[in-house]
């Protein structure tokens, strides 16, 4: 307040020309300056104020409160700066991350994990959305990109990107999850980190067009049972989608959280098959072919198949099943600062590719006994859903687990149930209950309960 008063007094003094004598001398020397320019200069560059008086008056006061800060005593950036906004530089540690374990020899066929420990709510900012690619991130010129729809249709079609955007727009909030999320942990916990245990997923609002709307004019033939979706990038990755999904909720998306898709997400267009394996959401989409036979693409034979203990493998395992993880606390944000008796919120994410989250249970003893948590915020089909539980911290070791259920009637299995049913060599589609061990000191360890 002091500072502001002094500055406005300066303005008053100058404008009314009631200037002290020592200032008059100063003015005489500045004959080349106009009065108005001087007035501006003295407002803009006032002599800095000594804060020591304040400090004396407030011994032990928080310097964050007592000391004048550069951001409060100078200009910020003008509006001409950063015409595309950037996060605060102080948030530079909130980034996607990689590990060599999850690269197929190089960083072109690899994955960048989403920092879900740092996210809030259910929307992932576009720059943090997890990125899986098989031959690098293509940077496609939208003017030179086409979508071809052919095969078992009466009228095959080629669309420019501008033409595609003329169909009625559909906007939906959906997660995309790589079915290998948590997959490295089939045979036991591996990652002392939430970002790496569960970060192969993100959630955004997507805008695009229903494929079924485009098909209205094309005349799908009765024997069309499958659709190949293929990308235009280095990997030319294809995947087979059954016609049922195409005619239900499959979307060709061109926007993500209100802006164009990022190159990492398939700019200019990608397939969106809500709730299903991330790999099926083909990026840099260029071709849809309808057929009476499935395609046996490499990512539905060599990979993305679930090898059961019977020796048989599940092919075309579409939906990511009901799943959840506690995001606070987590190894990155432990409870080491809590004192006995502190009240703390346990928060987490639940999701199901088969439907909508109905509820989430929490366990403090590794899944022996459960209590119901609260859902929070928007609860949408095939979207991240937040859950919450208010807890009085006792300073004792805990085994903290969450278990979600969906409106298709599915409940997350325990690690034991899942291993008993499928074995440990599945690689994909692991949704067993995730457990954090909270030590006496409040540290958080990634463990699995095998009981």
């Amino acid at each position, binding site marked *: 307040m002091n500072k502001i008063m002094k500055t406005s007094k300066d303005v008053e003094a100058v404008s009314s020309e009631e200037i002290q004598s020592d200032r008059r001398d100063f003015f005489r020397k500045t004959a080349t300056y106009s009065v108005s320019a001087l007035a501006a200069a003295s407002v803009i560059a006032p002599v800095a104020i000594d804060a020591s008086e304040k400090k004396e008056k407030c011994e032990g006061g928080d310097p964050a409160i007592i000391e004048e800060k550069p951001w409060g005593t100078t*200009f910020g950036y003008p509006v001409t700066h950063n015409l595309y906004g950037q996060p605060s530089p102080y948030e530079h540690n909130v980034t996607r991350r990689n590990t060599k374990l999850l690269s197929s020899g190089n960083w072109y066929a690899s994955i960048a994990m989403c920092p879900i420990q740092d996210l809030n709510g259910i929307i992932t900012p576009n720059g943090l959305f997890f990125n899986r690619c098989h031959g690098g991130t293509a940077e496609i010129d939208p003017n030179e990109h086409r979508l071809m729809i052919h095969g078992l249709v009466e009228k095959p079609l080629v669309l420019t990107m501008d033409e595609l955007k003329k169909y009625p727009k559909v906007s939906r909030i959906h997660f995309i999850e790589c079915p290998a999320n948590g997959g490295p942990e089939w045979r036991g916990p*591996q990652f002392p980190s939430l970002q790496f245990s569960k970060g192969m997923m993100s959630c955004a609002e997507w805008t695009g067009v229903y494929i079924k709307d485009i098909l209205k004019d094309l005349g799908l033939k009765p024997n069309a*049972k499958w659709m190949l979706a293929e990308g235009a990038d280095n990997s030319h990755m294809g995947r087979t989608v059954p016609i049922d999904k195409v005619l239900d909720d499959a979307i060709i998306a061109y926007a993500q959280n209100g802006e164009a898709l990022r190159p990492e997400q398939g700019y200019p267009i990608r397939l969106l098959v809500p709730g299903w394996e991330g790999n099926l959401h083909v990026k840099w989409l260029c071709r849809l072919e309808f057929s009476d036979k499935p395609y046996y693409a490499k990512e539905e034979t060599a990979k993305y198949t679930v090898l059961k203990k019977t020796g048989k493998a599940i092919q075309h395992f579409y939906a990511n099943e009901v799943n959840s993880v506690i995001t606070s606390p987590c190894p990155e944000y432990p409870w080491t600062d809590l004192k006995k008796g502190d009240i703390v919120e346990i928060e987490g994410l639940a999701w199901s590719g088969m439907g909508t989250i109905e509820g989430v249970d929490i366990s403090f003893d590794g899944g022996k006994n459960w209590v119901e948590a609260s859902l929070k915020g928007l609860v949408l089909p095939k979207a991240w859903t937040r859950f919450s539980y208010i807890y009085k911290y006792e300073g004792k070791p805990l085994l903290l687990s969450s278990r979600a259920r969906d409106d298709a009637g599915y409940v997350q299995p325990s690690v034991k149930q899942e291993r008993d049913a499928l074995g440990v060599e599945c690689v994909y589609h692991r949704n067993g209950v995730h457990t954090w061990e909270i030590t006496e000191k409040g540290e958080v360890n990634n463990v699995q309960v095998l009981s």
Partner: protein
Amino acid sequence: MFKSYHKILLSTALVVAASTAAFAGSDASRTYPNGKKVIDGGVAYPVKNGKTSVYFVNTKAHKTSFKLGRKPLKCEEDAWDIDVMYDGTGLPEGHGTPEEGSEVYEAKCVACHFDFGSGGSGYPALAKGNAYELHKTLKNQRLHPDDEGPVRVFGTYWPVASTLWWYIKTGMPHPAPLSLSDDEVYALVAYIVQLNELKVDGEELDDDTELNRENFLKIDMPNKDGFEPKIRKGPDTVRAYFDNPKNFGGNKKRCMKNCFEGKPVLARINGKGISDYLPPISTKKDLPKKKEAAAGGEGKKLYEAKCAVCHGTDAMGAPMVGDKKAWAAVLKKGLDKVIHNAIHGINGMPPKGGTNLPDEKIKEIVEYMISASK
């Protein structure tokens, strides 16, 4: 005796059948509008009263047929139709022998996939030996550290050979996809078939046996029946498969109390686990480490924060940064004098421009302003 009986009764009672709780207040449907069950075992949200789930829908928009785009030329379709199907659809004419394939392999593949397709350094193996023998490993489970796992390579695991032709043609070599001729692809497939000791029409391939469009479909893949559901029977077979939770480990029971006997048995991370993350995990809110003091660096930043208001324009009478003439005139006094004036004030400019920056910072700012005005 009574006690344990009581316990069984209790736990049974507390296993809530989740299906009774499902659909409460939800528009979820087990079936599509055509009456068929949802194919993935989940639910769909048919449009009801102008809404699907909680989303409002302009139903007219989705009933209208839009006529956009154009018909592709036949040659355009052919140019993009690069897939190869299990029945041979899309497989072009051509031929190659394992010997020819090994030459291409040595030139274009060995750097990543190593000698004889053995793989390594993160790149996948293409063969591990006799595929028919190794096929038996698919039931292996690595429950202990020394256990042998299932061998999942082309010969032992993949259901059909067409996938390999398609993959090599459109995805390999990794840095230069679509660069191999059809004959080179046949030759590479022949070489990999030989490495896996796979039979083609009942015989293993000799070095000079030709693989071509005719005998390609006679490659005998040991795991051809190793996958479920049987997708060739069509989507209805897939639908029936996912309608049974037992097939894919689906759970519908919600136990609330005493869900297992005794204390929990824990599996822990072995040692430090996998923690070689790039960049390392950090939750600090600090400024990124300076890479290299960029041109101007601190001086530029301070200039913009403190001095640009007057010196960023020629309207204030102060020499404008970027104005070569004005700064050449100022510098006639010599650099030391210019810095002295900046610290002590000159004409309309108060000492240090009204800041309380230390002298050395003022010097940095002046140096930046001069360098930006050359």
